[in-house]
């Protein structure tokens, strides 16, 4: 399926080292602001679907799902610590003016 960049949120709505969840075409996507660089990934933890925005703790580029301790690299979605075994999907981002766009 073809993908395209969709304006999702204003960049200034995501605090530095914070995570915000947004609905993009029916998918709940989390966006992390790591020192001015934005990473978009599935909000649902691949282990038991806790919201990474609500339950996650972001340190650098690592997000920890505090429900059960799984960790992911927000740049790649890769699992850094169990119990999750499957990665979370990641989405390319770009900045257009003051808007953050996500490719979905």
């Amino acid at each position: 399926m073809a993908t395209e960049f969709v304006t999702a949120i204003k960049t200034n709505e995501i605090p530095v080292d914070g995570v915000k969840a947004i609905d993009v075409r029916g998918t709940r996507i989390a966006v992390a602001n790591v020192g001015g660089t934005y990473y978009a990934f599935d909000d649902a933890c691949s282990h038991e679907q806790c919201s990474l925005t609500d339950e996650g703790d972001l340190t650098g580029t690592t997000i920890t799902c505090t429900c059960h301790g799984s960790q992911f690299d927000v740049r790649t979605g890769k699992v850094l610590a169990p119990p999750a075994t499957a990665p979370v999907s990641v989405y390319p981002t770009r900045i257009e003016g003051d808007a953050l766009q996500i490719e979905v």
Partner: protein
Amino acid sequence: MANAYVIIGGSLTGATAAATLREEGAAGAVTLIGAERELPYERPPLSKAFLRGEVPFDQSLVRPAAFYAAHRIETLSGIRATRIDVSARVVELEDRRRLPFDRLLIATGGRNRRLSIPGSELEGIYTLRTVDDAVRIKAEISPGRRVVVVGMGFIGSEVAASLRQKDLDVVAIEPAKTPLFRVLGEDIGQRVADLHRAHGVRMIFEDTVVAFEGTQRVARVITKRGLHLECDFVVAGIGIEPAVDILAGTDIHVDNGVVVDQYCQTSVAGIYAAGDVANHYHPVFERQIRVEHWHNAIKQGAAAARNMLGRGVPYDEVHWFWSDQYEANLQYAGFHTTWDQFVVRGCLKSGNFVAFYVNDGRIDAAVGLNGAKEVRRAIPLIKARRRLNLSQLQDESIDLRSLHASEHPEG
């Protein structure tokens, strides 16, 4: 010649140790011996999602089957190790095979305590530790059936929750005043009791089971205070004992499990222990500790493997566990047995809080009900062993992460 590594225990601890040995460059043979016939699997789902039929067993495997072959890990499943010959450095198996080792890891875990009271041989009385146990209990699940859960520790509480979620009629009996009383104390225990009560579990506290009655199958549970509870089956969650039989006749020191130092090494050089069976010296708490947690199985299994490779890394992980019951997430980090202050951050009655077990102004442990983030943020505070300003700890407007650097000398 490269060292030969043998691991007794086809468990989360054993499998993590085997994988870590390879990741860290072990060259010699790695053999993983498991008494259960399945490849190593994770036990947390057995009382929760697996029991409720929400996830298949395969999802609980620690590693897929192909992993072991790809990493030259020989798995001997469904076979018991029966003896360790310490001087010859050989493990004997029940089929009389003899496996020589240079480094040995004991990860035998524990076995369920069972009630030995009149009627305990009747059918329909279960305990839960293995997937076989879970499959047997699962076969009893049907809406409206009556179960008596004996013991409201973690296993009993989780099983009671799962069975209520499957619409069974659940009665629970617990000798203490509340669920989880021994570990978490009365304040937290009452909140857990509230949770189960709200979901329709009938709980009987400060009473014990003295007999089971029935013909062939259990039909009734008799308590010390004289209650007769009609039931279709029983699940007893009354704890485990460390599985140390294999150490009989060896010089390996056993005391509440296999005694190991901070490098996971037993009293015999080259022989290590990790997981539920290991009573380990913890450098943060400066005492011997034995825990039965998923997180410890992974972290200590990995630490033992590194030390089997001569890395000399102390195991100083702050212990942590979770327990999901209904929609609630309970978490605990640290280690405590007693406390001189119990500091609550948030409101206990709200069912969303974190609380701290404090001794002499230092946090030994944190517990949270729907407070996972806060429990995680408390871990560095626990590890630092510093006296903290307890009023700051209580103040929800102060980020726990900002307390890390501060020290409060007066406590």
